[in-house]
């Protein structure tokens, strides 16, 4: 973090390229037709990916821990606050821009197939490019205010894309819900930024990360705890953690590629990225670290249990995403920052893949999302099936798939790190078993067993076009191999990913001591629970399909509680939504319509009545006017004459 920065002149290209795509899609796209939109929208992101690869190779060439920087222009100069639009590319943001542009490019390509029948084609790609732009600003920003610009930008794009089919009431309100819940978190984030500014001491402040890092030690510990907790509130909103996770399942109302890009691979990981970026601040407060880890592991477990009983294919994946994000927070919460980012990356691969695969299934099923009406799709959609299977193996944590390495590293850190403890590890392990169970339940219900598709949909059942299957294949390969750059210590080339990121987290060195036999035992336990999850799902949904029903009947109370998602939405509705609506109605109908409008109209009425009296003076008779003029003139003259 403190190493010298190399100024470069090309970093601005990376976010600006998708921004050009936005302009094209807004102003030219609707007239240029689908062919042009099809080429331009993915191409700008693809070129940005190329530039990002070049930039990343430059970061490699720098001395250990250095970064590329570009100061574009001074943005806010107001007294003590001097914020510049400046980009910073170190190993951490380098990994992020590769994920955003790389996975983003694949999802843009996929979208050209998925959305090809939609009316708002150019609008869709304008939003998608705008999202890519905002996300790149978020991860490349050199200062907290600029990061906040990206943070809000991705929120707006999320809102626009969730409500993309806004002619349906449910979609529009899902978008609103996402936006409002995120506002709650953003308020916390903003307060955290203000507090940092407040405590930086005298002199002009740029709020750059390097500046904050340099002053971090001067801030009193209690304040650091408050700041980091407030910023973490922002992260719980953006990254859908307890208690602000409720918007993410509803966000599935948007087009499926959007769910893959925004609500799985990139935007929802912004909170994890923010904590990793501010690791030097978080590491100072053990309280915050404990809160982050606890919230993370509880979310992982909580969302996994809800995922067990969802029947909508995208809802299962949504709760799975919340759960996996919980793992990432567990990782950064126990001080394993690079491991958290590692899981962020592998998750982007396999969850992006799973969402795109589910999109392919929905596309083939003519829009059906209920897994109870699927089954046996393996025969109809072989590419989708095999790639989806690879993604499932990865998320369930079977070696040598990517998820195994990243999830295992998080669990190992939860057990062995100085911030960790055995119960964090145990809860994480249980969640891993549940993950394996619900993912294989999804696979078995969708792709195996008897075909429960109705006749009409069966007639149209088909494998998706190559524009959709190609990204699936690429992501499947990444889900298989993506974990190999972060092998456990002592395996072949070891943890290259951790070594790459280590300089970014140099301020936050966390000791982690474990014997290799403990490590092997933890790893064995992870694989064992994954296998148990697979086995139980196999038993429940292929061997004895009656068993889940029987179990649900035996444990009716617990089943109903989980099936209804712990009634959290109902609770929030009663606690926050309905009182707000009642209050708003009171303010509208009584305060606004009666009190305020009454005062305004009353003032007008008084003036009106008065002037009704006085306007009678205007008779329209010229000679009367002449008399008043004469009398007036005489009065004035008389006044001066007699004075």
């Amino acid at each position, binding site marked *: 973090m403190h190493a010298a920065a190399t100024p470069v002149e090309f970093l601005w290209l990376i976010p600006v390229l998708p921004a050009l795509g936005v302009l094209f899609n807004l102003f030219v796209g609707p007239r240029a037709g689908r062919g042009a939109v099809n080429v331009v929208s993915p191409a700008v992101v693809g070129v940005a990916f190329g530039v990002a690869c070049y930039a990343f190779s430059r970061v490699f060439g720098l001395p250990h821990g250095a970064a590329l920087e570009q100061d574009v222009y001074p943005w806010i100069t107001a007294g003590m606050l001097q914020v510049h639009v400046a980009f910073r590319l170190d190993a951490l943001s380098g990994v992020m821009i590769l994920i955003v542009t790389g996975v983003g490019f694949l999802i843009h390509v996929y979208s050209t197939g998925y959305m090809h029948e939609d009316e708002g084609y150019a609008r869709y790609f304008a939003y998608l490019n705008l999202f890519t732009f905002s996300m790149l600003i978020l991860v490349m920003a050199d200062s907290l205010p600029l990061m906040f610009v990206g943070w809000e930008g991705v929120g707006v794009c999320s809102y626009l894309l969730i409500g993309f089919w806004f002619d349906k009431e449910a979609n529009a309100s899902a978008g609103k819900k996402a936006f409002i819940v995120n506002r709650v978190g953003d308020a916390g984030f903003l307060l955290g930024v203000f507090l940092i500014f407040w405590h930086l001491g005298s002199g002009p402040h740029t709020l750059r990360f390097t500046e904050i890092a340099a002053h971090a030690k001067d801030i009193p510990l209690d304040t650091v705890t408050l700041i980091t907790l407030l910023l973490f509130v922002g992260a719980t909103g953006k990254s859908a953690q307890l208690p602000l996770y409720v918007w993410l399942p509803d966000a599935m109302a948007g087009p499926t590629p959007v769910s893959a890009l925004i609500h799985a691979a990139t935007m929802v990981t912004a909170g994890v990225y923010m904590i990793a970026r501010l690791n030097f601040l978080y590491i100072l407060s053990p309280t915050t670290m404990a809160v982050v880890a606890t919230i993370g592991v509880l979310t992982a477990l909580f969302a996994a249990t809800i995922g067990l009983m969802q029947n909508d294919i995208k809802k299962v994946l949504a709760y799975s995403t919340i759960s996996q994000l919980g793992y990432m927070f567990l990782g950064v919460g126990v001080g394993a920052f690079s491991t958290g980012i590692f899981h962020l990356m592998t998750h982007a691969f396999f969850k992006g893949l799973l969402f795109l695969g589910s999109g392919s299934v929905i596309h083939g099923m003519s829009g059906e999302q209920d897994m109870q009406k699927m089954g046996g799709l393996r025969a109809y959609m072989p590419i989708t099936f095999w790639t989806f299977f690879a993604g499932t193996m990865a998320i369930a944590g079977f070696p040598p798939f990517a998820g195994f390495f990243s999830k295992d590293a998080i669990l190992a850190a939860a057990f062995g790190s100085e911030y960790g403890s055995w119960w964090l590890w145990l809860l994480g392990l249980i969640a891993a078993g549940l993950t394996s169970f619900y993912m294989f339940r999804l696979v078995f219900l969708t792709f195996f067993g008897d075909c429960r598709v109705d006749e009409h949909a069966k007639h149209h059942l088909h494998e998706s076009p190559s524009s959709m299957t190609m990204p699936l294949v690429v992501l499947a390969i990444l889900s298989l191999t993506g974990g190999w750059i972060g092998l456990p210590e002592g395996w072949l080339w070891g943890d290259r990913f951790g070594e790459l990121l280590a300089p970014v987290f140099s301020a936050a060195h966390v000791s982690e001591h474990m014997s290799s036999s403990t490590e092997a035992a933890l790893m064995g336990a992870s694989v064992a629970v994954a296998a148990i999850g697979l086995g139980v799902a196999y038993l429940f949904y292929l061997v004895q399909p009656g068993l889940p029903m029987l179990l649900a009947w035996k444990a009716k109370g617990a089943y109903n509680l989980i099936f209804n998602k712990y009634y959290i939405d109902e609770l929030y509705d009663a606690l926050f939504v309905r009182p707000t609506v009642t209050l708003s109605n009171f303010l509208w109908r009584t305060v606004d319509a009666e009190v305020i409008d009454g005062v305004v109209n009353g003032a007008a009425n008084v003036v009106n009545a008065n002037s009704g009296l006085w306007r009678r003076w*205007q*008779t329209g*008779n010229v000679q009367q006017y002449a008399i008043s003029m004469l009398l007036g003139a005489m009065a004035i003259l008389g006044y001066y004459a007699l004075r």
Partner: protein
Amino acid sequence: MTLVPISLYLILGAILFTIGAVGVLVRRNVIVIFMSIELMLNAVNLVFVAFSRQLQSMEGQVTVFFVMTVAAAEAAVGLAIIIAAFRNRETVNADELNLLRW
């Protein structure tokens, strides 16, 4: 030739002005009102010229020329308005030209 004292000019001007003012106030015909206005203007002109002579100063006479010019222009515009009003309303009675009221 004996000099006429200025007080006689001023009395004549006051009489003419009063006739004009009363005419404006009491007559109904717009053309007569108009003529009464001219009478008032010329009453003032007479006073100007009288003082100009009395004070041996040209400024009063200069002002009179201005007043006459303006009065001529006013006569042209005023008569045109009266004709236009007559064409529309078929009357030049000031009592009946009272559309501009509440």
